[in-house]
């Protein structure tokens, strides 16, 4: 058990590309930290640097207070679970799990005892004499985990361990991983590109983009108070809606009507170099059918009317897609997110509005519908820098904040 500290850790390649840039991260003993981001954001490289499989170009890495930059992976006492599982095909499950112990030169009895223990935890006891080729994907995944836990390392590193499983198994294994980590209390760094995994598993989530850390925090904090456009768009499913907003006479002109601004945001927009155009972000659940909103709540938001495109009833609530007119929001971050998710999945920046309304709403496709949305939950972003302007001391105050 140990804490892991990354102090301005960078990775650059001989051809000049920078994969990871000045990552500062303190992972406490026993903490479960998720590195998440689109492909190519440097999360796997960061993990490999912690593992020792890749050299650190600059900065310092400390595990348990000790500088380990120049130590070989085997001297760092950390275990890793690979996306491909990387089981040794020539060995049985038992031999696979015993391999790190045999390298550590433990005696046979201790090895057998430890392997049996780990196998019991992961329900692998009946499979111990099989070869990896005769195991299913989920079983292989568990063997890979077993190989990591047998020698009780200082930390676990997991590189997208669930991404090769089918959707149902992935959800199952997610709870297995979570329970195992809680049970063992071992510091864990987990890499994924799946924001759902990031939200559900980690104590803290690190969002990376282009080799740089965007924001670090507990999942709920990232969801409620995204520091920038990228974090806002990456976290959440369906993703946040983004709309073009023009600054006009102390308010904002958007496709959903004129949005009034609080004093603080207005003051900020009065500065000489302030952007004249903003991106307004609002999550699907902050909309509601105007009919179902009581007067008290109504005052905290504004209403608009738009034609209903598609209604998806989830039982507990309804996802309603509206078509809205007006200019599309555009920013480099949004394009990147769209490219990562596949343009079809990321409707956030299009002319589509995704809303989550109460199940009681009588909304129907083809109609026009009046919808209310909460001004306190709005985020405003600078399209140039991506910064969240509504954020104050790390908390989002909405458009009206003063």
């Amino acid at each position: 058990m140990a804490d892991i500290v990354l102090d301005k850790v960078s990775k650059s390649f001989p051809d000049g590309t920078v994969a990871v840039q000045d990552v500062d991260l303190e992972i406490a003993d026993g903490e479960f930290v998720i590195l998440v981001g689109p492909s190519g954001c440097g999360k796997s490289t960061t993990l490999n640097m912690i593992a020792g499989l890749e050299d650190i170009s600059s900065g310092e890495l400390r595990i348990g207070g000790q500088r380990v930059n120049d130590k070989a992976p085997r001297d760092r006492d950390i275990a890793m679970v690979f996306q491909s599982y990387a089981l040794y095909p020539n060995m049985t499950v038992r031999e696979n799990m015993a391999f790190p112990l045999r390298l550590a030169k433990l005696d046979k009895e201790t090895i057998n005892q430890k392997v049996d223990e780990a196998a019991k935890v992961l329900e692998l006891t009946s499979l111990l004499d099989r070869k990896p080729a005769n195991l299913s994907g989920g079983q292989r995944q568990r063997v890979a985990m077993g190989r990591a836990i047998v020698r009780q390392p200082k930390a676990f590193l997991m590189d997208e361990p669930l991404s090769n499983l089918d959707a149902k198994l992935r959800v199952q294994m997610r709870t297995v991983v979570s329970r195992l980590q809680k049970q063992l209390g071992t510091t864990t760094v987990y890499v994924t590109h799946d924001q759902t995994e990031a939200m559900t598993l980690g104590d803290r989530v690190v969002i990376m983009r282009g080799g740089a850390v965007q924001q670090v925090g507990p999942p709920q904090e990232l969801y409620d108070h995204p520091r920038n456009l990228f974090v806002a768009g990456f976290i959440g499913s369906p993703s946040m809606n983004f709309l073009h907003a023009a600054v006009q006479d102390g308010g904002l002109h958007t496709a959903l009507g004129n949005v009034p601004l609080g004093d603080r945001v207005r003051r900020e927009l009065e500065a000489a170099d302030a952007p004249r155009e903003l991106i307004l972000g609002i999550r699907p659940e902050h909309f509601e059918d105007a009919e179902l909103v009581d007067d008290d709540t109504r005052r905290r938001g504004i209403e608009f009317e738009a034609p209903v495109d598609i209604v998806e009833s989830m039982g507990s609530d309804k996802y309603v897609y509206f078509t809205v007119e007006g200019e599309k929001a555009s920013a480099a971050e949004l394009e990147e997110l769209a490219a990562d998710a596949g343009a079809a999945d990321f409707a956030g920046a299009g002319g589509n509005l995704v809303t989550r309304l109460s199940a009681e709403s009588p909304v129907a496709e083809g109609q026009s519908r009046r919808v209310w949305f909460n001004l306190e939950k709005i985020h405003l972003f600078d399209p140039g820098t991506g910064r969240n302007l509504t954020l104050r001391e790390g908390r989002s105050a909405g458009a009206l904040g003063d």
Partner: protein
Amino acid sequence: MAVETTTRAKLRWGLLDVLVVVFALIPVLWIASLSFKTPATLTDGKFIPREWTLDNYRTIFDTDQFVRALINSIGIALIATLIAVVLGAMAAYAISRLDFPGKKLLVGVSLLIAMFPQVSLVSPLFEIERQLGLFDTWPGLILPYITFALPLAIYTLSAFFKQIPWDLEKAAKMDGATQGQAFRRVIAPLAAPGLFTTAILVFIFCWNDFLFAITLTSTERARTVPVALSFFTGESQFEDPTGAICAAAVVITVPIILFVLFFQRRIVSGLTSGAVKG
């Protein structure tokens, strides 16, 4: 792509297979048949001998010349194979896994050696070996064999190493293995089919060589079987050694067949299945 396996297609392929096998085996069988014939019936043109005899085999094993050549052949081929496969495995591993300066040059040069006409090297090698005192010795043959077998070994082995997922090696390192342990305990066992395949190819190359063996040897000290065969004579100049030569040819074919059969069981494709997802 679905392969059509109708009865017609099976029949056609079966016929083709038989044709190829018969075409390839007839000369071998003919030699085997000749080796069992008596000198009198040698030229009767019959495929199956009318009179069976083992005299030819007795003759060759009676002469010191053949037994000595057989020992030379086995020794030289085995040593050359062992060294070439070990060196080739190390070089191939480096080529497939590491990025080092001069890698392209190394691959290029080894390809060049493989394509170089051996016949043009015979005279220089002869001179060099005479100066160095290697002429007519085992090392004198082992060295050139290794030289020409190495490119072959490097090429086949690096193809095999490239198939082994890199993650396995990373996993071994994370599990506490040194680079050497990772290679010996994880990579090498998986590359075993490749190692055996390469060993067979190199062994056959050394075993069959005639050119170097005849130019770089002069006595029984290092003369290998293919060369010894060409020196076979009858007891008098009027006696025909054909039967004995055929018997010797059969004898030197047997080790190759045994060698291949022995290692064939180990050349199991798909040994790496189950390592990574799939």
